[in-house]
Each structure stands twice: as structure tokens, then as C-alpha cells.
């Protein structure tokens, strides 16, 4: 009997993917929305447990390889899980599950039952494909799951109540398809040069082709393609509308996971496939990435300050925050990379929480314009309280998660003696104070419009996830073993591999 658990442990990587991917078609077969929601929620929480188990296995620098179909790589497809993978897995599953828990209440007012089942199915597919992208060790397999996640995301966005959601989704579809095609071209070129698709195998066989023009073109295509997917400035064009018009709680999930997983793919390919020397030495990625990410941080923060719509404001803030992560990568030292990975996790947590709290308010007010949210601090004190904590975290006040990642980023910049960069980072934090402060000011100190004077606190099933996000933000501001501790090891690993 003792063999069964050990077998189970061996199969964990496959189980991690299958839990959500199999729950999806099952969900689609029920017409009863509540039942589907139960299945989806159970599956996503089981998936969280699985992610924790995997994290436990690789904790401290281990790595697991699982051969799909039993064929050894490079002939078959390999699934690789190391610490970086595990933290991204945890991000996707944990925040996905929290949003899923809150989703039922959020959807029940806008969709009929059968539609709801299909919506949960799409949500699960999106989650499963993000898990698939994260765990795979095969370059082409990344593209396959990228297709699923893109399709699912377009659908999720397009289901917004507003007709403008359709335009937003269509714009994202065009940009996303261009991005995915570029990534496919890049992978095809690499295959042409090396005859392999396995990432580990690629990284061994690519160095001899460093002077080959095909590889140069492949790298260019990959960078542009993935930058589109990450919504890296100035290729962020699709993001604000997509986030603004996508339906309620869904925004929380998309903001937390979709761009972060793309960023993860970017780190994987640049460091583990192309190699640091090639990317930053020969191809000069740094000279492109540093000014663009700083410009992105400043421009997007400034735009956020002048928004009148709460959702759009947070969306622009996302573009700015993605700039922090890109800058962390471009700094190319231990502190910078630590900050990038830490902020990936922390920002996912805070932004998901903010969007969820906002969704709870919109659930009552039916509008996301700042004017309609005025005075909501008195009518919905708990929701606004969670929102305030998360907002303060986003600014980067000490004892919140946001402080940790910014601390590493600034020290990374100082390690390089880039004093102006550090100063600009602090200026951008001031802008964050401006836009978060603007929202909190409206929520707490403006009088409530008369039609919203009587609204009640949000439903518990949405409020509790909001507070979990808020408390986690405080927790990870103090205990950083899971975030910065792990990220530090990952960073030295990535840099050491070069």
C-alpha cells in the first residue's frame, strides 16, 4: 500500500494540469450553473493543494522532470518544475481559486445559468492552459497552451456586459494573434537551427549558432511577440480597454495571471533558452529594455493619475507595474531579478485583490466611474477597508508586500550605480500615491450620491476573498521567505546558469 502515495507524488506534475483541464469539459456538460461552480471551485482548490505539494518538493532548489507519454526528451515532451515554476504555479492556482470562489456571486446577476456553466468552463480552461505554459519544458508546447489561453482570454473579455467589450476583445485578439505568430516563427527558426524543441536541449545546442542570422531573427521575433503578450510599454495598447470592459471579477484573474505568465515565459526563454550572454551581450536587449521600461513606468503612472474610471485607472497602473518587472529583468543583477520575480507574485496578489474589491463595489453600484464610488467608504466599510490596505501595498509602504519588491528594485539600481534610475523609481512611487490617494479620497471623503446612500455591504463570498488578498499583502510584507527568499535563489540560479 505504501507504493501508492509515492506513485501519486511522481504523477503530481500531470495531475496539476489535469485537475483543471478535465474539470472544464465536465463543467460544460451541466446546465446548472451552481453545480458547475461547485465542480470548478473544488477543482481549482485541489489544484492549489497540488501546487503547494510541488513547491514543497522543489523547495530549496530542487527540480522535477516528468516525461509525458513516457518518452525521454528531446523525443518526447518534458515537463520541468523548479522553484521559479512552482512560485508561478502557486500564483496562478491560488489567485485563480480565490477569484473563482468569488465569481459565482459576481456572475449570478448578469448571466443565465447555462451561460454560467460555459463561463466557468472557459475560466477553467484559461487556468489550465496557464498552468500548462508554466510547467512545460518544451518550446512548442508553450505555443500550444498559449493558443488555449489566448482563446479563453478573448472569450472571457468579450463576455463583458458592455458592447465595448467586444471591440476591446477584438483588438486584443489581433494584437495577441500577432504576438503568438511571432513567437511561433521564433520557435520554428530555433527548430530549423537545432532540430530540437526541448528547452534544455535547445540551450545546449544554440551557443554554436550565436553568429547565425536565423537565430538573430528568431530572437527579434520572440522579443516582440512576448512583449505584446506581456503588454510591455509601448506594446501595451490592448491592455487598458481589455481590463476596463471585461466582466467584473474576471479582470481580477486576468490582471493577476495572464501577463505574469507571459513574463515568466520571457524570463524562461531569455535566460534558459537563448542564454544571458546572447540576449544581453550580443543582442543588447538591455539597451532596449531599460529606457523603455522606465518610460513605461512614468508614462503609464502619469496616465493613471488622470483617469476618471476606477477600472481604467488600475489598468494603467498595471502597465506601470509591468514596467517595474521588466526593469528588474533588465538590471541583470541579483537584486534586480529578485525584485522582478518577487514583484510578479506580489503585484499579482495586490492587483487581483484591488480588482476584486472594486468588483464587489461595482456589484452594488453598477458603475465603475469614480463619481459613483464616492462616499462608498461609509456604506461599504469592509470592502473599502480591504481596498485601502491593498492600495497602500501597491504604493509600497513598509510592512506591505509592495515595499519588499520595490526595495529590491531600488537596491538593484543602486548596485549598478544608476542613481537617476533610483530617483525616477521614487518619483513613480509618488505618482502611485497620487492615483491611489485620489481613489481613496473619493471613497472616504466625498459625500455619497443620493441614489447610493442605502447600499449594503458586499456579499460574504466576495468579501472574504478580498480580505484574504489584503491579509496576504500584509503577511508577505513581513515574512518574505516564500517570495523574496525563493526569488533570491531563483535569481542567482538564472544568472549563474550563464
Amino acid at each position, binding site marked *: 500500500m505504501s507504493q501508492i502515495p509515492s506513485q501519486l507524488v511522481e504523477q503530481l506534475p500531470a495531475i496539476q494540469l489535469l485537475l483543471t483541464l478535465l474539470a472544464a469539459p465536465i463543467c460544460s456538460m451541466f446546465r446548472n450553473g451552481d453545480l458547475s461552480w461547485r465542480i470548478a471551485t473544488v477543482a481549482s482548490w485541489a489544484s492549489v493543494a497540488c501546487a503547494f505539494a510541488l513547491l514543497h518538493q522543489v523547495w530549496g532548489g530542487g527540480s522535477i522532470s516528468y516525461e509525458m507519454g513516457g518518452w525521454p526528451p528531446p523525443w518526447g515532451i518534458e515537463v520541468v518544475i523548479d522553484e521559479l515554476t512552482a512560485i508561478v504555479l502557486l500564483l496562478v492556482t491560488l489567485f485563480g481559486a480565490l477569484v473563482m470562489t468569488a465569481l459565482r456571486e459576481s456572475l449570478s446577476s448578469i448571466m443565465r445559468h447555462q451561460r454560467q456553466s460555459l463561463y466557468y468552463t472557459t475560466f477553467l480552461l484559461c487556468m489550465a492552459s496557464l498552468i500548462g505554459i508554466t510547467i512545460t519544458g518544451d518550446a512548442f508546447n508553450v505555443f500550444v497552451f498559449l493558443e488555449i489561453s489566448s482563446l479563453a482570454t478573448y472569450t472571457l473579455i468579450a463576455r463583458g456586459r458592455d458592447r465595448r467589450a467586444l471591440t476591446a476583445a477584438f483588438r486584443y485578439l489581433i494584437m495577441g494573434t500577432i504576438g503568438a505568430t511571432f513567437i511561433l516563427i521564433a520557435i520554428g527558426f530555433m*527548430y530549423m537551427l537545432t532540430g530540437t524543441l526541448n528547452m534544455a536541449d535547445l540551450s545546449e545546442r544554440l551557443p554554436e549558432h550565436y553568429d547565425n542570422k536565423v537565430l538573430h531573427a528568431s530572437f527579434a521575433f520572440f522579443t516582440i511577440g512576448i512583449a505584446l503578450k506581456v503588454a510591455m510599454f509601448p506594446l501595451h495598447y490592448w491592455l487598458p480597454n481589455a481590463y476596463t470592459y471585461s466582466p467584473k471579477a474576471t479582470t481580477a484573474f486576468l490582471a493577476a495571471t495572464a501577463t505574469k505568465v507571459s513574463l515568466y515565459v520571457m524570463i524562461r526563454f531569455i535566460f534558459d533558452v537563448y542564454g544571458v550572454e546572447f540576449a544581453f551581450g550580443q543582442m543588447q536587449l538591455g539597451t532596449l529594455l531599460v529606457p523603455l521600461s522606465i518610460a513605461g513606468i512614468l508614462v503609464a503612472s502619469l496616465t493613471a493619475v488622470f483617469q476618471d474610471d476606477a477600472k481604467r485607472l488600475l489598468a494603467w497602473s498595471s502597465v506601470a507595474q509591468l514596467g517595474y518587472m521588466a526593469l528588474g529583468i533588465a538590471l541583470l543583477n541579483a537584486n534586480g531579478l529578485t525584485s522582478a520575480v518577487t514583484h510578479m507574485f506580489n503585484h499579482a496578489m495586490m492587483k487581483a485583490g484591488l480588482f476584486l474589491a472594486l468588483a464587489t463595489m461595482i456589484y452594488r453600484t453598477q458603475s465603475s466611474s469614480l463619481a459613483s464610488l464616492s462616499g462608498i467608504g461609509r456604506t461599504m466599510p469592509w470592502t473599502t477597508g480591504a481596498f485601502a490596505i491593498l492600495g497602500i501595498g501597491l504604493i509600497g509602504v513598509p510592512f506591505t508586500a509592495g515595499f519588499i519588491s520595490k526595495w529590491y528594485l531600488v537596491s538593484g539600481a543602486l548596485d549598478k550605480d544608476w542613481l537617476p534610475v533610483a530617483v525616477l523609481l521614487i518619483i513613480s512611487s509618488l505618482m502611485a500615491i497620487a492615483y491611489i490617494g485620489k481613489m481613496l479620497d473619493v471613497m472616504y471623503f466625498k459625500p455619497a450620491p443620493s441614489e447610493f446612500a442605502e447600499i449594503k455591504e458586499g456579499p460574504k463570498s466576495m468579501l472574504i476573498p478580498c480580505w484574504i488578498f489584503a491579509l496576504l499583502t500584509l503577511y508577505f510584507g513581513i515574512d518574505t521567505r516564500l517570495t523574496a527568499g525563493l526569488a533570491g535563489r531563483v535569481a542567482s540560479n538564472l544568472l549563474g546558469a550563464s
Partner: protein
Amino acid sequence: MLVATVFAIVKLDHLMTAVMLMGFFSLLSSCIFMILDAVDVAFTEAAVGAGASTIFILAALAIVGRKSKKKRREKTILPLIIVTCTGALLLYATLDMPYFGTPDAPVHTHVAPRYLLESGEEVGPPNIVTSVLASYRGYDTFGEAGVVFTAFIGVLLLLGAGTRKSGLEREAPPNVKVESMRQKIVLREVADLLIAPVLVFALYVQWHGDFGPGGGFQAGVIFASAIILYALIYGIVPAQKILPPRKLAYFPGIGLLLYALVGVIAMFKGGNFLAYGALMADPHDGQHYGILAIELGIGITVAAVMINIFFSLSERSL
């Protein structure tokens, strides 16, 4: 010819003609795939590109009208620069590419030899494409089946098929263009002749994937195109009588689950996910039946998805 066709498509205002040309474009590209010896892909391209998707777009046109609206000219400089840069980059890359068909190109020397030389021993099917697709890289194919399924769910969620009444349950619409096809004797006779052989051919492609070009994707598409042809000639209502949309909506999920089930059973038998060798005592038998089962899963998913999408589009246009 491909390039000329594309230019024509972009320039045309008349959408109907543009769609027809797109069908032509697909046919041309499937010829190219033939020349490149990718018969499987050619199959699919001919059926999906030239056949089914043309019909889908026509059905969509029936809803929105045939002429494109005149649009004000937008800035074209930036897109032009981007496209030129991309093209230049592609040309730049060709400078260092191995020559077409060189036997010692890395593609042919690294992974491929094992596929070519040992797949007969390890996997079984004489068709190596099937071995790679279904066994060595079966996980990718599982993902692709997932893509098809996701597309289906997306269409269902956005077009709202299945939530409204199907053609059967609604009153007969007053003026149905599709019905009038019945009067066209030549069309009907030809369709009558074609449909049964096409269905049989689909089954042949399905089961013969081990030996010749074919497999679940192709078979599913061919099967679906036969049904769609039937619906086009005899109207959507009789077709839905044969395949009620409500029941049909279950099948994409069933196909995907069947695929996954094969993999999961392998896990219970002590192998990895999708390791068909573990399915039976003799790994060869395991591989053989495993591949047959997953191909069937793909076939079900693809066929059901195509027919479903066609139904939901044409329900809209009724």
C-alpha cells in the same frame, strides 16, 4: 498566385467575391502542402480552409450583408513600416538558412533519426507522422484538442447557441433561402451521390491513420463537411432532426475526455500520462489501441465542434 490572390482579397470591396477568393487561396496552399509532402496537412487545409470556413464566413455574410462599408482612410504609414521591417527581418534570416532539402540540416540529424528508424519498433504504426503526433508528442496533440474545444466553448458562449431555441423548436421562418436549394435538382442529385461516400471516406481516414495519411483531425473535418453539405442542401431543420444540437453540444467534451481518459488509465497502470505502452501487457498492443482511442477522441471533438459552430451560425441567420 498566392500573393496575387491575397492582394485581390484585400483590395476587393465585394465581400462575397473576397470570400470565394479566400477559398481559392486555401486550395492553392493545400496544393503547396502536397508538393512539400505534407499530405495530412493538405487534407485538412482543403477541408477546413477551402470547404468549411468558406461556408462559415458565407453564413456570417448572410447575417451582415454583402458589401463592405466605405471607411475613411486611416493612417497607413506606421503599419506599412512595421510590415516592411518584419518582411526585411524574414529575408535577413533566410541568408543563413540551410538550403531546402539538405540532408544534413540539423532538423534531419538530431531528433528525426529516432523517429524514422525506431518508431516502427517502439510505437508500431507504419505512418511515422501518426507516431510522432499521437505518441512521441501526444501531449501537444492533447493540447491541440484542447484548443479546438476552447474555440467551441468560446463560440457557444458568445453566439449563445444552445440557449435559444434550436431550428426544430422554433416556428418555421417565413422566408428561408436555404430551403429553396431543394428545388435545384442538379445540386441535390450531386449531393445525394456525394454525402454517403464522403461519410464512409471519413471513417476510412479515421481508422486508416495508422497506415496512410489521415487521422482524427482530418476525419473529423471530412465527416463534418458531409453533414454541413446535407444541411446546406436540405435545410438546417432536417439536419438538426438527425443531430439534435442539444445532444451534439456534449460531444466536444466527450471527445476531449476520451483522449484524457486514455492518458489517465495509463497513469493508473503505472505509466506516465499518455504512456500508451502501459495500457496493456504488451507495449505494442498498448501503443496501437491507445493511438486508435485518442484518434477517435480527436475525431469526435473536431467533427462535433465543426457541426456545432455551423449550426449556431446558421441559427443566427434564420
